[in-house]
């Protein structure tokens, strides 16, 4: 599914809409079957809550504005346990507050989706300006050893699919999934083609076949490793705790129980990287310079890639759509022949370290960045390329 690019033919296409990225998030979540949203509106994610407060009641869902972000994610986890696909949306300051409950969702293996629309930081920072400073916070913000899934997008058509993917992954792996976008994508308006019902596959929750009043083990995996759920407050009584727990869900401090649980939480994601990694690449084969970018900055990178190719330079590009788990193998393989690798991001260097760790000959890796709240421009990237090539700016 992609937006039509032959504009003269588009009149025949009835489902084209001109929306903000935040509105796309809201519509895609409803398409994915999300029926519970709890949140605390914060710039630049406010339009997600605003639109859902109107849309959810129309489709029989529930919208709650909570007292803060801690309570928001707690409510989302509770609602998800009772059987609803649930979501919250926030920005950096709110995402900081959610770290504790995010860890709880990881430990209790409750599917949910958190949209983090990045703004300038730290603290309240630059509310109305863009940044990509939360990349590492998504990965390591909550304490303890864990893994997480994080998706992003640079345009609205991809964003629509990524949000649906986030719900599908959350339900499949019983894990929180973070959709990490930035102020530019969130507030930008562009065309998006709304898919028809049934056009994109949706993953529904795996519900236990254990009958009512028969013992149900909330953390007892099936043969394929998946953990069927039972709607909390429904057919079965079971325990949910953030403590290390056994297959009954009760606290345990036995070393083998803790060992198995931590391995399970990490392996269920890291061992299925191939199912989770989404990316796009352009002209990477034969490229002397490979640009690696994600989110809004991928638009600047794409712009300068096309511009440089037009003057005969061998520039290619990889756009990451799955940020976590990080696609080490893919980056290593696709960058093995490049002379230079330029990571484009709006922070002081977060993904660049992942790329350095992934590739051989890491001295080939350079960072093109900007942290003043303005979007990185194609010229910013071009100037760095010229410096790398010893041409001067």
């Amino acid at each position: 599914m992609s937006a039509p690019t032959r504009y003269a033919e588009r009149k025949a296409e009835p489902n084209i809409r001109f929306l903000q990225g935040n509105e796309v998030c809201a519509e895609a979540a409803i398409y994915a079957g999300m029926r519970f949203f709890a949140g605390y509106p914060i710039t630049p994610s406010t339009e997600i809550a605003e639109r859902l407060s109107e849309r959810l009641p129309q489709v029989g869902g529930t919208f709650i504005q909570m007292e803060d972000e801690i309570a928001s994610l707690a409510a989302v986890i509770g609602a998800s346990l009772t059987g609803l696909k649930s979501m919250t949306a926030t920005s950096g300051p709110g995402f900081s507050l959610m770290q504790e409950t995010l860890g709880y969702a990881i430990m209790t293996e409750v599917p949910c989706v958190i949209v983090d629309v990045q703004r300038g930081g730290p603290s309240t920072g630059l509310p109305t300006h863009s940044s990509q400073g939360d990349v590492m916070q998504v990965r390591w913000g909550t304490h303890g050893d864990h893994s997480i899934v994080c998706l992003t997008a640079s345009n609205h058509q991809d964003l629509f699919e990524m949000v649906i993917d986030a719900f599908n992954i959350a339900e499949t792996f019983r894990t929180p999934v973070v959709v990490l976008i930035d102020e530019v994508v969130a507030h930008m308006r562009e065309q998006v083609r709304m898919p028809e019902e049934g056009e994109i596959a949706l993953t529904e929750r795996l519900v236990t076949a254990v009958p009512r009043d028969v013992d149900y083990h909330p953390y007892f995996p099936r043969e394929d490793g998946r953990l069927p759920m039972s709607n909390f407050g429904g057919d079965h009584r079971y325990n949910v705790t953030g403590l290390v727990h056994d297959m009954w869900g009760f606290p345990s401090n036995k070393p083998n129980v803790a060992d198995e649980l931590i391995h399970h939480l990490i392996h269920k994601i890291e061992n299925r990287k191939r199912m989770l990694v989404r990316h796009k690449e352009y002209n990477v084969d034969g490229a002397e310079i490979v640009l690696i970018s994600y989110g809004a900055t991928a638009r600047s990178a794409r712009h300068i890639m096309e511009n440089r190719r037009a003057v005969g330079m061998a520039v290619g590009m990889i756009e990451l759509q799955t940020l976590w788990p990080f696609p080490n193998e893919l980056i290593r393989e696709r960058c093995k022949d490049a002379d230079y690798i330029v990571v484009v991001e709006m922070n002081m260097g977060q993904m660049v370290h992942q790329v350095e760790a992934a590739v051989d000959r890491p001295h080939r890796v350079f960072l093109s960045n900007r942290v003043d709240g303005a979007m990185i421009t194609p010229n910013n990237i071009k100037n760095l390329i010229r410096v790398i090539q010893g041409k001067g700016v």
Partner: protein
Amino acid sequence: MIQRFVFSGTGGQGVITAAIVLAEAALYYGELNAVQTQVYGPEARGGAARSDVIIADAEIWFPKVLEPNVAICLGQQAYDRFSGVVRPGGIIIVDSHNVRLQKTISSRQFQLPFHETVMTEYGTIQALNMCMLGALVRLIPIVSPDAMRQVISDRFDERFRQTNLSAFELGCNLVKESVRTF
């Protein structure tokens, strides 16, 4: 073909709404691609507001406008900021009530009485942005006035529809001849 517009003024003047209306008309009825972005401060009103629109017949990657083909400046501050970065051969449209012009050599400037026109007609400047849009599409025929009328009718509810549509016509009438920039 690619045309880059900057709509600038102060918060509350409706520059962001105007930008969205133009972009929607190009996308829905002009068989073109459009991307709109905005820059604004934490204030609800009074801060500098700016919205960028790119209209093209191809994919648009970088969504911001650094050097506009067309700058619409509804205040002096906005004019001082953008008049110098308009592309050679570009167009600057200003509100005669709020902006004092400087001489330029590389762009054409149009000083039009939006403020005066809507104040005389309605006694409020609420529909000033629609009046400006009327003049804009007459001056630069990138989108047909009918497409604009359609978007304005669809976008606003009954309370504002008639005023906005008539303000749009007033704007159209401010311009006699169009200029081509693409």
